[in-house]
């Protein structure tokens, strides 16, 4: 294959086009929300203009088309993940997916049971467990984080006890970019009879994965970080486990029979999809999955890795710049968070904006992790396949400028 060409990919994203001023945005905020290719937008437009209807309860041709498209979206996501559609629950995002497990699985837990998270989790994988712990008298424990910004798996022995019912960890960190090795986690959980949930929000935009090989019981992710609309996400659960869990939200579509006295519930995944789902967004997600599957991920991964190396190299030349996370290229994704001595991340990203660079500054919804490193926030550059050397160079130039001006 020829050299990977990010410009050819970028050409599919209207928002990344060069403007009349000859400039374009260097979009390095992909870990917050990735951009949307025309193919995904077209799928959404097609739904709204040719198939729009509510699903599941109508037999007219639009309802049938909408239902087929929605069921087809579930099948497409399942196919991409190598799982069966009955394990795919559509939610409004990662946060809703994790809250669903916190409530449904939570109903089966009792006082004294333990949940294990880590110090590097996104608030979306901390707060639901804190709230559950409070509701049901559970104990929340956390694996520490190494100086390299990875979850310290040597602590598994100590932190995961016989009382552990669930280990919930980020498959990849949204701050350090570190990718978890799920095997020891799954082994530790299995030894104690606990379940494993992986928060895949950051892993999923970086290419195909063999979900069943991870050894987890639940996997959560969001559409908007993988080139799809906001407001759609997925909770995958092992079908036998989902079937054993009580529902979470109540409403239309998740029931079998309703009387004023008593309700029986549908089987999964419908049991966990109360009310009208985000139909257009689910169809957009399926288009995004198809779009992702069409990329050469061996080349794209190499490309992202090379750009990550370029960022790390460039940073080492900026005095006062420190990376929170692995300093090497192993076991990480193209997410790099930087602390600039004496400079506030909001000021840094504001100055980067004047260089047409879109980066996120702040705590990235990971306050405990930043506290671990003794800072309040960082400036994060995160990659997608459409990013090129020019994006990285603009980032580095902007950062050097910020360093000069803010110190």
């Amino acid at each position: 294959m020829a050299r990977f060409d990010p410009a050819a990919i970028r050409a599919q994203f209207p928002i990344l086009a060069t403007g009349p001023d000859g400039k374009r945005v260097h979009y390095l905020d992909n870990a917050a929300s990735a951009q949307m290719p025309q193919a995904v937008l077209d799928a959404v437009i097609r739904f709204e203009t040719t198939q729009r209807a509510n699903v599941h309860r109508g037999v007219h041709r639009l309802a049938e088309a909408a239902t087929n498209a929605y069921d087809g979206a579930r099948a497409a996501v399942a196919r991409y993940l190598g799982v069966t559609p009955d394990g795919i629950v559509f939610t409004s995002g990662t946060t809703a997916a994790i809250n669903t497990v916190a409530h449904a699985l939570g109903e089966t837990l009792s006082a004294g049971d333990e949940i294990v998270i880590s110090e590097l989790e996104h608030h979306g994988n901390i707060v639901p467990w804190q709230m559950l712990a409070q509701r049901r008298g559970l104990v929340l424990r956390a694996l520490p984080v190494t100086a390299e910004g990875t979850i310290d798996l040597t602590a598994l022995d100590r932190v995961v006890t016989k009382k552990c019912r669930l280990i919930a960890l980020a498959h990849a960190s949204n701050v350090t970019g570190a990718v978890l090795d799920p095997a020891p986690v799954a082994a530790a959980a299995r030894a104690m009879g606990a379940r494993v949930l992986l928060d895949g929000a950051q892993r999923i935009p970086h290419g195909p994965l063999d979900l069943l090989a991870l050894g987890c019981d639940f996997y959560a992710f969001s559409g908007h970080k993988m080139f799809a609309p906001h407001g759609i996400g997925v909770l995958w659960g092992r079908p036998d486990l989902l079937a054993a869990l009580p529902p979470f939200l109540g409403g239309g579509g998740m029931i079998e029979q309703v009387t004023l006295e008593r309700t029986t519930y549908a089987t999964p995944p419908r049991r966990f999809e109360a009310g009208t789902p985000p139909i257009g967004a689910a169809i957009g997600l399926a288009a995004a999955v198809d779009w992702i599957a069409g990329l050469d991920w061996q080349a794209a991964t190499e490309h992202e890795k090379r750009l990550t190396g370029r960022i790390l190299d460039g940073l080492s030349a900026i005095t006062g710049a420190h990376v929170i996370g692995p300093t090497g290229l192993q076991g990480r994704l193209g997410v790099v968070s930087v602390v600039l001595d004496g400079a506030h991340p909001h000021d840094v990203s504001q100055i980067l904006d004047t260089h047409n660079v879109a980066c996120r500054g702040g705590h990235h919804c990971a306050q405990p992790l930043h506290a671990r490193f003794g800072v309040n926030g960082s400036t994060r550059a995160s990659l997608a396949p459409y990013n090129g050397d020019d994006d990285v160079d603009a980032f580095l130039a902007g950062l050097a400028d910020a360093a000069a001006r803010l110190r």
Partner: protein
Amino acid sequence: MSDDLYQQAITTLAKAATGAGKLEHPDACETVDNPLCGDRVTMDVELTDNRIARLAHDVRGCLLCRAAASAIGSRAPGRTAGEIVQVRAGLQAMLKLCTVDPIDGWPELTAFQPVAAHKSRHDCVLLPFEALIRALDRAAY
């Protein structure tokens, strides 16, 4: 054409309602719901030598569902559970794969071919078969 769904053959079959009713001493009785539409089929069976000796169905459902139950009422007696499973497989293929082969010994099922184009209605046709097979499973114990 969706119109074909309600061709004379289906209407006649549904109205005949062959086998509608209850058995007094069934070997098994199973009720299956279609939660999407609230339809419900109850199937009573009596077995002799592993063959269906008698059956009766009680259907709260649409014309397609009633027609399928009526076909069962006239064709299922004398069959084994294995034969019924095969008939259902043929019917499923007709609906999901749009096969056009007639199903051996059940000529009236051909009338369901147009339903293939209407995925939301497949379960209406299959529900009575599902109930029958569950009842046969139960009776086998």
